[in-house]
């Protein structure tokens, strides 16, 4: 190793202290709760329990339906997203940047907002006049809306970086556009397509907010929803833990597929080049492939905005929703928009801060102290569903349940991977010689971290922290399990309103959803100006 890559004589370097801090954090808040879930799920006789789990007709039906729903969602999402991804990677055209930004919206949108948007579009009294509530169609539509951006970004981004030059090569070898797509583009994109599909599958398999809002009848309950119902309504923690265990196994398997393929899809191919403008036929093809996803993305948002001021049954514009949303808390046991916003901001601030510190410490340990296992471990919170995490907290740390820090720490845990992923590339990009230069000039390890590393990390840090804040703002599952009424965040408040009868509550829910959307959009816009998110 080069001198300076690792300077000698350092006992408790920033990297090692960071590693200890991050390990402790992950162990206490992730591993202990997960072990608690698994232990509770398996019970005193693990073998017998496993056999029971495998044969229990109720569990099998739930698992089967969840798998069916997730598979259908994934196939549809890829079918809608892939043509768009190919078009993005094939041409440059006016409005591409705007469209790309539009396609990112669902990506960062809280699931509760997406649910509310589709409710306003296709629920009872929906803007389109068709009620699809409790149908598989509506669940699938919402999942496609929510996830097609994953396919467009992962596959499109991969192809854009690789395919233009390879397509040129294919053309000079005699392959026309269709043959090139079949023989070059699609085989090339296969790992990226499968990786995106695996990710979408995990998201749909553990779908929570969307199902709870769009199919409250229970016909399409995922395991995740069933876990919540077992905890919240029936207080059957054994069943909940068993379900969580089942879900964990499937999600981890799909997550493993994703990680393996993602590594292959990330191989730099060095075939990037300028993209051509589409010809006349290309323009038609472009419009045909991009119009459906664009429409699907915009429609629920428009419906949300319209229905918030024109509730079903109202003649013309009505402000009842806005008045109800901002009425003081406590009336009829609902939380006001003011309190919910304040709570959301408090949780986002506290968890964002913790996530930033822990995420940075973790990145330091990986890069500077070479604690490689933390690199993989840092992704674990992403693979753990929110309700499972909530359940784990409930089982492992009952004293934290219903407290501010209980939920704040859960949110911090979920936000940590985003910070780590954003900081890692910047930290890796600092040449070892720079640290060595500072050392020779008299700076110790801590001074080097402060004066040399930190300035270079700021853009990545801002990006990661912003992402962590956005995730906390929209988080629903853990909040539902761990919160109590006085601590209700915006997503909780939306769900609360939707569970109550009357046009007033319905409109208030949509107003709250708009508010949450605006808050998230503001964070993302701020991020876009201050620095980009990193590796994710």
């Amino acid at each position: 190793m080069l001198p300076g890559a690792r300077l000698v004589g350092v006992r408790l370097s920033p990297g090692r202290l960071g590693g200890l801090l991050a390990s402790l954090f992950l162990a206490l808040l992730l591993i202990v709760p997960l072990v608690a879930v698994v232990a509770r799920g398996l019970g005193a006789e693990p073998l017998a329990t496993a056999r029971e789990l495998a044969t229990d007709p109720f569990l099998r039906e739930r698992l089967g339906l969840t798998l069916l729903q997730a598979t259908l969602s994934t196939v549809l999402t890829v079918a809608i997203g892939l043509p768009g991804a190919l078009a993005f990677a094939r041409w440059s055209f006016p409005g591409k940047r705007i469209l790309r930004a539009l396609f990112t919206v669902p990506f960062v949108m809280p699931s509760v907002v997406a649910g509310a948007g589709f409710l306003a579009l296709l629920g009872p009294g929906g803007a389109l006049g068709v009620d699809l509530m409790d149908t598989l169609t509506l669940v699938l539509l919402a999942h496609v809306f929510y996830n097609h951006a994953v396919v467009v970004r992962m596959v499109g981004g991969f192809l854009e970086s690789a395919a233009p030059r390879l397509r040129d090569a294919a053309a000079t070898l005699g392959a026309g556009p269709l043959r090139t797509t079949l023989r070059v583009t699609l085989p090339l994109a296969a790992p990226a397509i499968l990786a995106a599909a695996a990710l979408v599958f995990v998201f749909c398999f553990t779908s929570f907010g969307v199902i709870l809002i769009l199919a409250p009848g229970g016909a399409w309950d995922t395991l995740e929803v069933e876990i919540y119902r077992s905890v919240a309504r029936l207080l059957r923690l054994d069943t909940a833990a068993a379900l969580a265990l089942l879900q964990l196994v499937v999600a981890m398997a799909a997550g493993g597929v994703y990680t393996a393929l993602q590594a292959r899809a990330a191989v730099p191919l060095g075939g990037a080049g300028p993209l051509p403008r589409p010809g006349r036929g290309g323009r038609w093809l472009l419009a045909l492939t991009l119009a459906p996803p664009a429409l699907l993305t915009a429609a629920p948002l428009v419906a949300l905005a319209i229905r918030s001021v024109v509730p079903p049954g109202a003649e013309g514009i009505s402000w009842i929703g806005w008045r109800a949303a901002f009425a003081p808390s406590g009336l009829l046991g609902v939380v006001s928009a003011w309190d919910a916003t304040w709570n959301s901001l408090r949780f986002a601030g506290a968890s964002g801060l913790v996530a930033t510190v822990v995420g940075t410490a973790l990145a330091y340990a990986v890069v500077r102290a070479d604690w490689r296992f933390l690199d993989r471990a840092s992704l674990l919170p992403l693979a753990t569903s929110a309700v499972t995490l909530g359940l784990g907290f409930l089982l492992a740390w009952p004293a934290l349940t219903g407290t501010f820090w209980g939920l704040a720490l859960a949110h911090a845990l979920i936000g940590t991977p985003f910070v780590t992923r954003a900081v890692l590339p910047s930290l890796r990009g600092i040449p070892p010689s720079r640290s060595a230069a500072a050392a020779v000039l008299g700076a110790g390890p801590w001074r080097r971290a402060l004066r040399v590393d930190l300035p270079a990390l700021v853009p990545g840090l801002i990006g990661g922290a912003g992402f962590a804040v956005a995730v906390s703002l929209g988080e629903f599952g853990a909040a539902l399990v761990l919160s109590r009424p006085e601590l209700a965040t915006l997503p909780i408040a939306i769900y609360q309103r939707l569970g109550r009868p009357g046009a007033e509550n319905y409109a208030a829910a949509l107003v709250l959803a708009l508010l949450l959307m605006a808050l998230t959009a503001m964070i993302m816009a701020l991020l876009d100006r201050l620095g980009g998110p990193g590796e994710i």
Partner: protein
Amino acid sequence: MPRVALELSGVARHYGEVRAVDGVDLVVPPGRTLALLGPSGCGKSTLLRVVAGLEPPDAGSLRMDGRDLSGVPPQRRGVGMVFQDYALFPHLSLKDNVAFGLVERGWSRNEREARVRELLDVMGLTGLERRRPQALSGGQQQRVALARALAPRPALLLLDEPLSNLDRTLRDELMDELAELLGELDVQAIHVTHDQNEAFALADRVAVMHDGRIVQEGTPDELVEAPRSAWMARFLGLRELIPAGQAKELGFAGTTLLRVERLRPDPDGHVFEVQRVHRVGTDLELALTSPQWGLSVRWQARPRELREPPEPGDTIRLRVPDDAWTVLEVEG
């Protein structure tokens, strides 16, 4: 190998305000290899892409053997191309990369296998058939790219800086190899390069591009003998240029090139003062000034040509023949 005549007239390609290719007229006679030489950003790669059909020209026309190429897509032009980054297909083995174009042209399996074997043999790639491109060295990748382009027997081979991605030693080695190979296979080619040595080694004729235009075209000898502008002279490494104002005082009509390589020691020669001396390889380079002409030049000599190694402050007499002066740009 088939031979084609390529004829470009008034070809232009613009990107917004940037005129990458700005009205190029060029004729490549059948069987002749041409190098497009120029600094980076001069538009030579763009011109090559226009010839390949990868970019449409904004103006002008291309003819191949008299046939107008406008509207003919690249897959029907019958040209082969070696890309700067090789653009090998990472999802295909070496063998399948080379066979790619043969499949498109409907060759049978047996014909394909035979042709691929033949090319891999010529290129010294036998035994690597099943490797993926990522698992090959830079030099091997370059040869695969060449084999892939040559496999369908294109009428014309286009090479876009095929050696620029390699390190210096390998580049010199492969340059000789490539020249030999293309000669052996009797392939008509157009090379794009920014490297003068590469252009001179690989092509019969060289067209020098600058700011989207062809500034001079000819054989390597013609270019070096008679550069048509100060820019050309500087680009070719002829560095002792006398600006117009100073040249006029010496009696020349405009910017003048002094060919220092034609200066020879001579007891009756012109007097120069030695400023500095240093070694360049086996030669000595002397920084000289001429008090009479007010000129500073650098002159290289074999140590044996000089009676004793000169030192700063010495004077040295050199004969400056009349043909050492070339007036490049006549003013007014």
